[in-house]
């Protein structure tokens, strides 16, 4: 028995990471802007269409100065998409949003141009090495997942031999297999995988997601509740059928 859970088209919410260029100005700002102009003149269009983040962590700056700095970026056609390391008091309406949790990227992962290093030497161009093919992994958990616990395994499949409690969550890059009752949340294909599936022995889930397509408990067909169920994605709609 195959069912489309609801007719309404669902909204896709996905996580995605982008590589952003981070600019960390130093004082005095006029000098720094002059060096930026110097860089821009030598590699035209460097900032064009690139996400740029302004890092003000180590910068002693007041709100007015920050506004002026942002205006200076606008003048130079540099679009700032976010500000990192700013005190909440520094930011105001009309400014780019605060960002946090950024991770530094190793040299070879970044683009060819110099990013923050502003030197007179042109940067060497290195072809990016092809990424080694990742071995699909799986995580097996032999205990129930308790309320408040969260299992996040972007590398592959998650198998739980036990139940997933209400208020617990399992997030897998691959498929999710629950050999018990699924009462909490299960998200399969969390980093983009339309072929990921969710299997559980007893369906009581609060929320399900496959490849960013979400489904709340109340949108699920009542006939599935308490049954052994598998769920998969077909044309951006979560499909479900009872197993056995």
């Amino acid at each position, binding site marked *: 028995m195959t069912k489309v859970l609801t007719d309404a088209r669902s909204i896709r919410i996905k996580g995605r990471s982008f590589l952003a260029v981070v600019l960390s100005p130093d004082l005095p700002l006029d000098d720094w802007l002059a060096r930026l102009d110097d860089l821009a003149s030598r590699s035209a269009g460097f900032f064009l269409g690139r996400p740029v983040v302004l890092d003000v962590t180590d910068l002693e700056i007041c709100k007015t100065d920050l506004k002026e700095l942002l205006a200076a970026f606008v003048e130079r056609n540099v679009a700032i998409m976010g500000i990192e390391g700013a005190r909440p008091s520094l930011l105001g309406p009309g400014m780019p949003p605060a960002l946090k949790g950024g991770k530094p990227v190793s040299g070879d992962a970044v683009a060819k141009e110099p990013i923050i290093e502003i030197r007179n030497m042109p940067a060497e161009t290195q072809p990016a090495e092809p990424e080694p093919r990742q071995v699909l992994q799986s995580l097996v958990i032999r*205990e*129930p997942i*308790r*309320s*408040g*616990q969260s299992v996040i395994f972007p590398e592959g499949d998650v198998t739980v031999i*036990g*139940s997933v*409690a*209400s*208020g*617990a969550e399992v997030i897998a890059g691959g498929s999710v297999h629950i050999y018990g*009752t699924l*009462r909490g949340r299960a998200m399969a294909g969390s980093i983009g995988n339309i072929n990921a599936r969710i299997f559980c022995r007893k369906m009581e889930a609060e929320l399900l997601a496959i490849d960013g397509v979400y489904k709340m408990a109340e949108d699920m067909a009542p006939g599935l509740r308490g049954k052994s169920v598998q769920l998969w994605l077909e044309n951006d709609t979560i499909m479900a059928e009872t197993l056995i």
Partner: protein
Amino acid sequence: MGKVIVVTSGKGGVGKTTSTAALGAALASKGERVVVVDFDVGLRNLDLVMGAERRVVYDLINVIQGEAKLSQALIRDKRLETLFLLPASQTRDKDNLTPEGVERVISELRRVFDWVICDSPAGIESGATLAMRHADVAVVVTNPEVSSVRDSDRIIGLLDSKTVKAENGERMEKHLLLTRYDPNRAERGDMLKVDDVLEILSIPLIGIIPESMDVLRASNIGAPVTLADASSAPAQAYFDAARRLCGEPVPITVPGEKRSFLGKIFGRKAA
């Protein structure tokens, strides 16, 4: 070396303090040396339930801060001479409960007593995590209703991750004590069934305490229910739970179920 038990639940008002006092008194009445320790700094209650509120001079915080010796802070019960209370401080802040201090006090108590029963505060903050930190055994007190069950589930997760035993890669022994079980409401389906709770929490059941006015009456006169009226239904259930804690195989009876179905009752085992 004595055993350290933490009585915990996550949710408040489910019967942690009542159960601590009742189990402590039940164990002490068998001649075991027992100390009940109140970890609820700032909101202490165990002294009231034990009927020792007017005898508190020094408390757990005084001992931790080195202002009093353990022997000065321990209060001997007037009814059972092997039962002691280590009260919590009502006036101090719970930030005075330091991990090192708690470790020292617990290891001292463990040397002197057969059972150290720690009454955890509600919640999952430092008071609760410190109360469970050095435990060998956990008694998870749960009411048969969804919010209590979910909070207990959360606490079980913490017991398996934030305790010394868990950090050493050992398994914490956990028992479920189902309290305030009302046979009439269970009959009407207004309450979670015993089997449902066991299925969700999947830890062994150590006892089912029926909802009873005897419990309230006992706390009002300042006595553990197992001492106030040893023949009452909740007292009997606590005595049985205490025997199971000691490792005796005592069959569990669900209040309200007919005793003639002995096979069914004897066969009831935790998932």
